[in-house]
């Protein structure tokens, strides 16, 4: 690593610091990697994810852009086709919607249509629980999940935040990297020395259990683990599977877990209808039907825009309690 990570506490690394470390290390490793977005250079990014990059690598590789998501996403696509590896930051991931056309029509199709590779990462803070209101809280994975040509990853831990960002930067196709802003400074862990690369498409079992499987990702991994711990007191053994990658997702890990526990509870923070959980449920129905001992249940946010006021947002989102109650119900089925 060429530059120290500003603000890193001795020992443990936060989720946000892990992202910053991955950016520093990948930029030091590969001169083709550069960062482009709003307020990423002088300011260091709205949440500080790109802090220190300008000083370490210069303004030519850390580009502050005009407010123009189509413009800088498109520019990243062009630079990627030229062989560079841009990392695009959206100040809040809600704003990626402004660049939707450039991502789904251009970036996602170009290898397939024309053989030109578009190795780029699109990252930014998403998710609720921070009282950000309708335009600074959304979970957007389903918008892109139905677009072949894109990859989508969603780390839940500092370790995975680092390892998946490195994998995304090294991947030869466009990757949407969903970082959960609620986790930025709330979780930390001691990371091993050296390179961490998590292969895209691989999930991980966070907690083993016998009675049912919670399939989840992102911030909901932590609430699901809390629910599992609470249910253990009641004698219910809950397995928690963190998918980490959504496109492609680890279908084999899901099926393997369901074959053992025979019950599936899908938990995500995005709204219910058309959410990625519907796809997991369908795969289980198609490929593990005969193993099921109960309905596949889903716990997800209400089918509304993300409300702002704390009582409203708390009511809107899955909580540890709603996950716990759903799991208890499923276990009793």
């Amino acid at each position: 690593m060429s530059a120290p990570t500003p603000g890193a506490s001795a020992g443990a690394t936060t989720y946000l610091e892990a992202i910053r470390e991955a950016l520093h290390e990948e930029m030091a490793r590969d001169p083709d990697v550069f960062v482009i977005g709003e307020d990423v250079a002088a300011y260091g990014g709205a949440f500080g994810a790109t802090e220190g990059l300008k000083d370490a690598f210069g303004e030519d590789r850390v580009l502050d852009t005009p407010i123009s998501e189509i413009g800088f996403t498109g520019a990243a696509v062009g630079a990627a086709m030229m062989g560079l590896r841009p990392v695009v930051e959206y100040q809040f991931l809600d704003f990626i919607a402004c660049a939707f056309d450039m991502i789904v029509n251009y970036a996602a199709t170009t290898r397939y249509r024309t053989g030109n590779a578009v190795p780029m990462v699109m990252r930014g803070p998403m998710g609720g629980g921070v009282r950000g209101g309708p335009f600074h809280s959304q979970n957007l994975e389903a918008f892109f999940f139905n677009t072949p040509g894109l990859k989508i990853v969603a780390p839940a831990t500092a370790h995975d935040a680092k390892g998946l960002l490195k994998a995304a930067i090294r991947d030869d196709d466009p990757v949407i990297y969903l970082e959960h802003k609620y986790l930025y400074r709330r979780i930390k862990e001691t990371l091993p020395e050296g390179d961490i690369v998590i292969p895209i498409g691989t999930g991980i079992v966070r907690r083993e259990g016998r009675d049912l499987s919670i399939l989840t990702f992102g911030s909901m991994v932590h609430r699901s683990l809390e629910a599992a711990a609470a249910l253990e007191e009641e004698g219910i053994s809950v397995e928690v599977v963190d998918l980490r990658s959504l496109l492609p997702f680890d279908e084999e890990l899901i099926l393997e877990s369901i074959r053992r526990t025979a019950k599936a509870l899908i938990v995500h923070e995005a709204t219910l209808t058309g959410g990625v959980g519907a796809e997991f449920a369908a795969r289980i129905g198609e490929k593990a039907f005969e193993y099921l001992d109960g309905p596949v249940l889903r716990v997800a946010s209400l089918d509304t825009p993300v409300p702002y006021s704390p009582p409203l947002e708390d009511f809107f989102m899955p909580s540890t309690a709603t996950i716990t109650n759903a799991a208890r119900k499923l276990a009793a089925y």
Partner: protein
Amino acid sequence: MARASTSRSGKGTRKGKTRAGGNRSPGPRPSDALGPGQKLELYRWMLATRRLEERLTNLYRQNQVVGGLYRSLGQEGETVASAYALEPGDLIGPLIRNLGALLVRGYPPRDIAMQYMARAGGPTGGKDLNVHFGDVRGRGVVPPVSMLGDLIPVMAGVALAARMRGEERIALTYIGDGGTSTGAFYEGMNLAAVWKLPLVVIAEANRWAYSTPTDRQMAVDSMTAKADGLGIFGESVDGNDVLAVYDAVREARARAVAGEGPTLLEARTYRRKGHAEHDMQKYVPEGEIARWEKDDPIDRYEAVLVETGVARRGDLDGIDAEVRAQIDAEIEIAQASGMPDPRVALEAVYADPPRAADHLAPYREDA
């Protein structure tokens, strides 16, 4: 940086960099340096564009073209001249009416014919249609998508990459007058302007965006006003004057490599065919097409070549016969080529995995 200018819209005094066509500075023109061979090469590319599109039109009428056919009749001059004005290392992003640019960049006519006929041998192997192909790191051709305006930010990024690598290469792309209405156009142009990227954009004022006339796309008389708004160099040029377009692009290229930033070059021309071949042009006022036929870029250039002693009429007829024979041979090759193996549809969505799952396999008739 400010240059004396008179904008065509001409409302008051401006400090913009816009220059109206015909108001060129005296002195040598870049095209003066073109030898007779190069001038005839330009002619040959224009003719090849027209003859290839004529043959494709026949194939379309015989149902051998899969999907629509898009003509550039009347616009061959600005496309060929602008592509020809680039250096071999430069990057170009052609749109649907810039078939000629692909020929100039070395794609054989058979490639374009196979694309239009959805054949396996086309540059996309049957995955995309018409001129939707490219080879960024090979031929320097950046593939378009159907969404107009998208190539502007993409080409800004291409220019950015070239500059980041310290390469003296520019990026050139095209946009129709209708395409300049898009947000992508403004965002990409603004990015290029702020970063002074080596980007040249040919804005084709060809009167019609499908059936919508230019004055229903914009409230300015000339797209040079858009250049003024962006703070970049703008110029309006007679798009059917091949050498004038060549000169303007050479000068824009020189500014781009000198670090003076992008140019928006309006090429005044006319789309003499419909949006695509199915379009009967009912919306075109009586007599308008006939008037523009008299301003045909190929006819005008032939007159220039004869008047300046570069060629005699008979020489030009000979070139046309050669071009026709070559296009015929290329079309024959395309017609003899096969359709793609269906399983190619699974390939290359990603580098890894290289092949998509065929979840329909259990239900196929041959399963």
